[in-house]
């Protein structure tokens, strides 16, 4: 279902499929852990999405590449005067 939903075509050797399957299984373990905290009202839910066949390292390497830097504390109207 995942492959169909997110249009995944893995390489013919089977290695790629096996590797992605491992990441997918690891994601399922993460979801169980993350959802165990989701008891409050409207709490976030976690599960399979388009990133579920990526390892956490791959995900970070592609999508989490921004830097913030240190910003000065806001000292606007609330503290003036």
């Amino acid at each position, binding site marked *: 279902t995942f492959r169909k939903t997110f249009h995944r075509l893995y390489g013919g050797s089977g290695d790629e499929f096996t590797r992605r399957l491992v990441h997918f299984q690891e994601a399922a373990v993460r979801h169980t852990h993350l959802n165990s905290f989701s008891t409050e009202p*409207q709490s976030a839910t976690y599960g399979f999405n388009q990133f579920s066949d990526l390892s956490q390292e791959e995900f970070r390497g592609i999508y*989490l*590449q921004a830097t*913030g830097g240190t910003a000065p504390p806001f000292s606007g109207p609330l503290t003036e005067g």
Partner: protein
Amino acid sequence: LPTRFDWRDKAVVAPVQDQLACGSCWAFSVVGAVQSARAVGGSPLQQLSVQQLLDCSFTNNGCGGGSPTAALSWLQQTREKLVAAAEYPYQAEARICRFFSQTHRGVEVKNFTVHSFRGQEAAMMAQLVEHGPLVVVVDAVSWQDYLGGIIQHHCSSQWPNHAVLVVGYDTSGEVPYWIVQNSWGTSWGNEGYVYIKMGGDICGIADCVAAVSV
């Protein structure tokens, strides 16, 4: 301040985009803020070129990542105008920078501010209402598995790594939350949006906040 506020209701927020397999969130967030700031000022909402920033903002690293603050500094210092997205479409890879003449139509960043609102999220609400959508840099490690709802736990604020756009908030319910536009397409999260509990600097949402004027 109103109990609920959402810049999408004023038609100044462009649709959710998909950065694809390119670390260009920094460019999407900045361009999102610039095009919204222009619309907040009364001009029609126009989608501007993310690719232009990706290719030309040499202080950043294209698809390898970047900093919204550095991108805004570059835009302000060079007075480079962001052209329409249709003129310089997104390619999900950095290419050679295309230059446009000074007379070419585009949007120029006049000014921007960057502050930490840690412990001052009420002031951040005011900043949002007063200035328009805000660029923030968050720790989005747990977002790999996010499906929907309000993030209230296990989202650290120690390692900022992803830039997004805060477009509103809602304090009317039991759990007040920020409304945040991501750039991972509409199939991710709540139609491309993520909700983050207000107060407590969840995901580091208040640590590095930029407001833009055009």
